[in-house]
Structure formats: structure tokens, C-alpha cells
């Protein structure tokens, strides 16, 4: 994005919803501010971006004075002069050898102040921090080619500061590696504008950093699953030609990138990402191939495995049905451009990638791209349960016809646990709201800023629902945000994992609200998102009239229409 594009984006007519961001930096924010605002508006044109920054040259003081309740997010951009002005070029404090230990000491004191200031804010606000991006001035006697002991000490203390802060999930630290790849370190500093305007960045660096900070503040939802081809993708070789013992993925067989790819998929699977295989192949041979104990991606991590000779899009459709996820939440990878085109044409919303088996730079790029597509802030207990619960569903629940559902549910020994609370760091609850499409009341997403707003709002409450039965645990599978009013309860957001469908958990949720709040009516802030048909259908079956915007569900109608509710109920004490 050039500055002219950024200015034009920022100058667009103001939108209704405001996002208040404090950009804390010690220099004049100038073009960095413009690019940050422009990228935030690009991500969400409905936002009016209100950017504030404090006094010039006083980064730490600005943070100490900042009122978190007046903002939705905080971006902190630290440069060396913010830690000791002698590390900048606008003041002349001296670089004599005898002063170097004192500079290191003073930087440590600044980092301690910064830590205290940020810890105060982190409990109330999402924070992203960028460590110094500009070079240290030439003040060390060892020359520019050698890192002096003082420089190493500075960098060690800075890394320790960042590590301590990033342990809490509400503080994100900008990846230096990513920034280095996109903004070459040697081309960032502008001495002329630093001295003349107090703005030390070249425009290109300001643009890259502004975009990166906006990405960390906005945090797009990640994908849920990856479908991979097998021959010449998960492994090298054609299984039908060389047999299970002939396929390979190792260095000595010149097939290392397939081994790396397996290792990468195993890593995704361990983080709760769904992995499936779609291959035009003989199913028995594929079974045998997955029995090889040197495979880096275990068969247990891949489900389902579609191996037959029909169209790939047919396999993909079956996998989506089994997972119960939408095409846009999935990435498809295959070495054949023709297969990729066939699947892409059947599922235009799906991201389909050609596996670049002969192109090492492209393969390296693909891994980074996929890691970003499946990025997570942290790993929850539910991530470990996801695949197993889908397997269980496929083996048991899907065999049950509607007629026998009552009996089956009764025998399943289902247990629902309802918990009310407002924990600020309940990432699983917001992940469900942000990633669920089908059983979602209105598609409302909660980024870090919206979460902070929700936590501050004393009228709304958060209900989370966990489920387990004799087939296993599903973990937390439903989230509802709402507020009680006189004789009614207003549901602002409601999402349930597709893994929990067909268990009547949604009926239990409403029954619980009717009883817990002793209300006569539930009002839903419903919006047709074109993807939430399962939820619309559910609500429609509870009333005799066509559901419209903000439908009301009287308790009498619910009691008349709701089926038998089979699960045991437990309640956890409120927290947060």
C-alpha cells in the first residue's frame, strides 16, 4: 500500500462503529499512524479508526498515563532511544567507552518501567508490541561487524522483557523474523526525516509495520481443516505403481520435502486442526501405506481418508460432511493442477493449493502461508478432543435414524455442564463465536477489541456449555452471550460447534435460560448470514409463525414444541 492509497482509505467517510487504538511510540507517529489506520479500515471498512498517541519522546510516560478504559487496543512500538535517549540521534548524550555500562543499566531500568506499565494495561486491553526495528547507532568500539558485549547484553535483556510479557495471551509480540522478511533491516532507517521531523522510518518500513500491527490487532479467523492428496504430495511416488514399501519421504531418497510436509501436517493436527486425505487410489493399498511406522503423520491424525477412483470433489464433499464444516474453512492441497482446478470449481470458496513438489522456494512459501492460515493464539483442551469426537460421531451417531434418536440419546449418558462467567482470557469461548458459521445466531465476530468491550460491559453475561457422553468428551461446544431484562432474556450471540449437532443440546440451552433467569420470553438478535441455515431452521421449529429479525420465543411455545431432553445437567460456579 502506498501512502496515497493509505490516505485515501483513511479519508473515506466515517463509519458507525469506532475502534479506539492507542499507538504508543516515542517518535512522531506520522505515516506509521496513517498506514496503521488504513490497514485497520481495509480489514473492516465498518470501523471508524480513532488513533491516539501521546507526547513526543516519552513512550514509557505515555503508557503510564494511558487510561485503558478509553481504548479498545494498544500498539506499542519501541525503538532504542525510548530505552535510553543516548541510543538515538536527536540527543547528544555521548558514546564514550565509560558510558556504555551505564547505557546498558539505563535500558534495563526502562524495560522494568515498561513492564510495570504494560502489566497494568494488559489486564484490561489487548496489546501488541514491536521491539526495536532500527539499527543501534555506531557507538560500540568493537566495530559494526562484531557484536559487542554491551550490545549482546542489551538484546538479551530485551528478549527477556518480551518473553515475560508474551506469556500472557493478551500481549502479542511482533515477529522480528516476519518483519525482516518483509522490510529489509538495512532499508528501514531515514536519518534525514528522523532529524528533521522526528519520524525515523522510511515510508516502505512504515507501511510494512503498519500492516503487521493492524494484522495483530484485527486477527482474522483461522481455517479449521486441511485436505491433502497422497501420491507425490504426502509422500513421493505413486502408490499403485511402487506399492506401500516403495513410497518415500526421506533425504536419501531425494524426497525430503514430503517428509517435511508430513511433519508439518502432524504439527497442525497436534494443534487441533483437522487433517483428511483425498486420493485417487486403491483403498487397501492406502491402508497398508498408513501402516508404515516411519510415517511422520500417523493414521490416527488423519480422518477421514477418502481413497477411491471417483472425482476428488466427491471425496472433498464427503470430508466436509463428516467434519461438518464449510468449504471456506478448509484448505485443499494436491500436486495435480488439474485436480486442484476440479475441486476449486466445485468449491469456489475453498482455498486450493498446488503442492510445489519441484519448487523448493514455493514449498517453503507454502509452509509459511499455511502456518498463517491455521494460526492460533493458544491451544485449548478442546483442540486435543476435536478429531476423536468427530471419529466417534461418525462411528456411532450417524448410524442413528430420527425414529430411534430418543432411545439412543437416552442411552448415551450425555452430560451437559453450564457455566456462567466473564473470564477475560477465555479464548475457547471466543474462538467458537469467531469460527462457527452454521449454528451461529448472527455471525457477530469478537476481535480483541470487541472482547475487551464485552468484558467491560456489566450487563451482558457469557454462558459456555460443555458436553460429554459415553462415547467421549466433546469439551466446550456452545457459547451464548446475552443480557437479562424484565421478564425476557436477550441473546446477542450464540454459536454451537457443528460436532454437537443432533444431540438436542440447543434445546437444553434454551431450557436452561428460561429456568435460570425465570423469564417468559427469549429474544434473539438473529441475522441471516446465508450460512446459518441450521440455526434458522432450529428457531423456526419452535414457533408457528415465520421467524424474522429479532424473533421472540415465548416460554409456552418452547415447552409445547421442544422434544424430550435427554441429558443430565450440571452447573459450574460463575467465574471471571
Amino acid at each position, binding site marked *: 500500500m502506498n501512502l*496515497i492509497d493509505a490516505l485515501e482509505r483513511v*479519508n473515506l467517510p466515517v463509519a458507525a462503529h469506532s475502534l479506539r487504538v492507542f499507538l504508543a511510540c516515542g517518535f512522531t507517529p*506520522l505515516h506509521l499512524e*496513517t498506514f496503521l489506520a488504513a490497514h485497520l479500515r481495509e480489514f473492516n471498512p465498518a470501523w471508524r479508526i480513532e488513533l491516539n498517541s501521546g507526547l513526543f519522546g516519552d513512550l514509557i510516560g505515555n503508557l503510564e498515563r494511558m487510561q485503558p478504559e478509553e481504548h479498545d487496543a494498544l500498539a506499542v512500538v519501541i525503538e532504542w532511544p525510548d530505552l535510553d535517549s543516548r541510543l538515538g540521534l536527536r540527543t547528544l548524550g555521548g558514546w564514550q567507552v565509560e558510558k556504555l555500562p551505564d547505557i546498558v543499566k539505563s535500558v534495563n531500568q526502562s524495560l522494568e518501567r515498561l513492564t510495570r506499565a504494560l502489566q497494568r494495561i494488559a489486564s484490561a486491553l489487548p496489546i501488541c508490541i514491536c521491539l526495536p526495528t532500527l539499527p543501534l547507532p555506531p557507538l560500540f568500539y568493537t566495530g559494526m561487524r562484531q557484536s559487542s558485549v554491551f550490545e549482546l547484553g542489551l538484546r538479551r535483556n530485551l528478549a527477556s522483557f518480551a518473553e515475560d510479557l508474551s506469556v500472557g495471551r493478551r500481549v502479542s509480540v511482533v515477529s522480528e523474523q516476519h518483519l525482516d522478511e518483509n522490510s529489509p533491516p538495512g532499508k528501514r532507517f531515514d536519518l534525514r526525516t528522523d532529524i528533521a521531523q522526528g519520524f525515523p522510518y522510511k515510508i516502505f518500513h512504515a507501511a510494512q509495520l503498519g500492516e503487521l500491527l493492524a494484522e495483530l490487532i484485527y486477527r482474522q479467523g483461522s481455517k479449521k481443516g486441511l485436505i491433502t492428496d497422497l501420491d507425490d504430495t504426502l509422500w513421493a511416488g505413486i502408490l499403485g505403481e511402487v506399492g506401500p514399501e516403495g513410497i518415500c519421504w526421506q533425504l536419501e531418497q531425494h524426497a525430503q520435502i514430503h517428509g517435511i510436509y508430513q511433519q508439518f501436517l502432524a504439527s497442525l493436527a497436534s494443534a487441533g486442526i483437522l487433517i483428511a486425505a483425498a486420493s485417487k487410489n486403491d483403498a487397501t493399498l492406502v491402508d497398508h501405506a498408513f501402516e508404515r511406522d516411519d510415517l511422520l503423520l500417523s493414521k490416527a491424525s488423519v480422518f477421514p481418508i477418502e481413497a477411491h477412483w471417483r472425482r476428488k470433489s466427491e471425496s472433498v464433499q464427503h470430508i466436509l460432511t463428516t467434519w461438518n464444516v464449510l468449504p471456506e474453512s478448509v484448505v485443499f492441497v494436491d500436486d495435480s493442477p488439474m485436480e486442484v482446478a476440479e475441486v476449486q470449481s466445485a468449491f469456489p470458496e475453498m482455498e486450493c493449493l498446488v503442492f510445489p513438489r519441484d519448487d523448493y522456494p514455493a514449498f517453503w512459501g507454502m509452509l509459511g502461508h499455511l502456518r498463517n492460515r491455521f494460526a492460533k493464539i493458544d491451544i485449548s483442551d478442546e483442540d486435543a478432543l476435536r478429531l476423536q469426537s468427530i471419529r466417534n460421531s461418525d462411528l456411532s451417531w450417524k448410524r442413528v435414524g430420527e425414529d430411534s434418536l430418543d432411545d439412543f440419546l437416552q442411552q448415551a449418558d450425555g452430560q451437559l455442564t453450564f457455566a456462567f462467567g466473564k473470564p477475560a482470557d477465555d479464548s475457547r469461548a471466543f474462538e467458537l463465536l469467531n469460527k462457527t458459521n452454521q449454528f451461529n445466531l448472527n455471525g457477530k465476530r469478537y476481535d480483541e477489541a470487541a472482547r475487551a468491550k464485552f468484558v467491560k460491559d456489566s450487563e451482558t453475561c457469557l454462558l459456555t456449555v460443555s458436553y460429554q457422553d459415553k462415547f467421549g468428551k466433546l469439551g466446550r461446544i456452545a457459547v451464548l452471550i446475552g443480557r437479562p431484562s424484565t421478564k425476557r432474556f436477550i441473546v446477542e450471540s450464540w454459536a454451537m460447534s457443528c460436532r454437537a449437532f443432533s444431540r438436542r443440546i440447543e434445546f437444553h440451552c434454551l431450557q436452561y435460560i428460561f429456568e435460570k433467569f425465570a423469564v417468559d420470553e427469549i429474544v434473539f438478535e438473529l441475522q441471516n448470514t446465508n450460512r446459518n441455515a441450521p440455526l434458522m431452521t432450529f428457531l423456526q421449529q419452535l414457533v408457528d409463525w415465520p421467524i424474522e429479525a429479532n424473533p421472540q420465543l415465548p416460554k409456552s411455545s418452547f415447552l409445547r414444541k421442544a422434544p424430550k431432553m435427554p441429558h443430565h445437567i450440571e452447573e459450574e460456579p460463575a467465574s471471571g
Partner: protein
Amino acid sequence: MDDRDDHLMRCFSSAFPGATRDEIRAAKTFDAIPGWDSLRMLNLAVVLDEEFGVQIASLGSLELYPFDKVKQCLTQRGLTSTDQPMS
């Protein structure tokens, strides 16, 4: 209006979003453009550099219809846009 005129006007409009095209064209000095301030002047300088690859010395002191003056300056240097770099 030719392409360069249009491109230049886009630069001015991005830097001075509160001013209409007519106001920009009619302003006798920079500070007569509605919404003028030193930050917007900095933005204009960087935008002209990015879009036309030109740094105009003492841009802020250009008087008597600065829009036309900048256009004249670009013409003298044979510039159209950054994809046709200055000679």
C-alpha cells in the same frame, strides 16, 4: 483534464481531504487550501515523491497557485508517473 493532471489532483486530494478540486486549483498559496497544516504538507511531499519520483525543493514556499506550479515543475522535468521515471 489529462492523466497527469488527474493523477496530480489525486495526490493533492489525498493530502488535503477537506478541500474540493476547485478549491485546490483556485488556492493562491498552500495555506489557502482548506484544512492546510504542516502535517498535510509532509504527506503531500511524500506522496509526490512516491507517485512521480520527484522531490520538490521548498515545496511549501511555492506561491501563486501551487497546484499549477507543481504541475509546471513536473512538466519541466518530463514526468508523468513513477513508472516513467525522471530523466
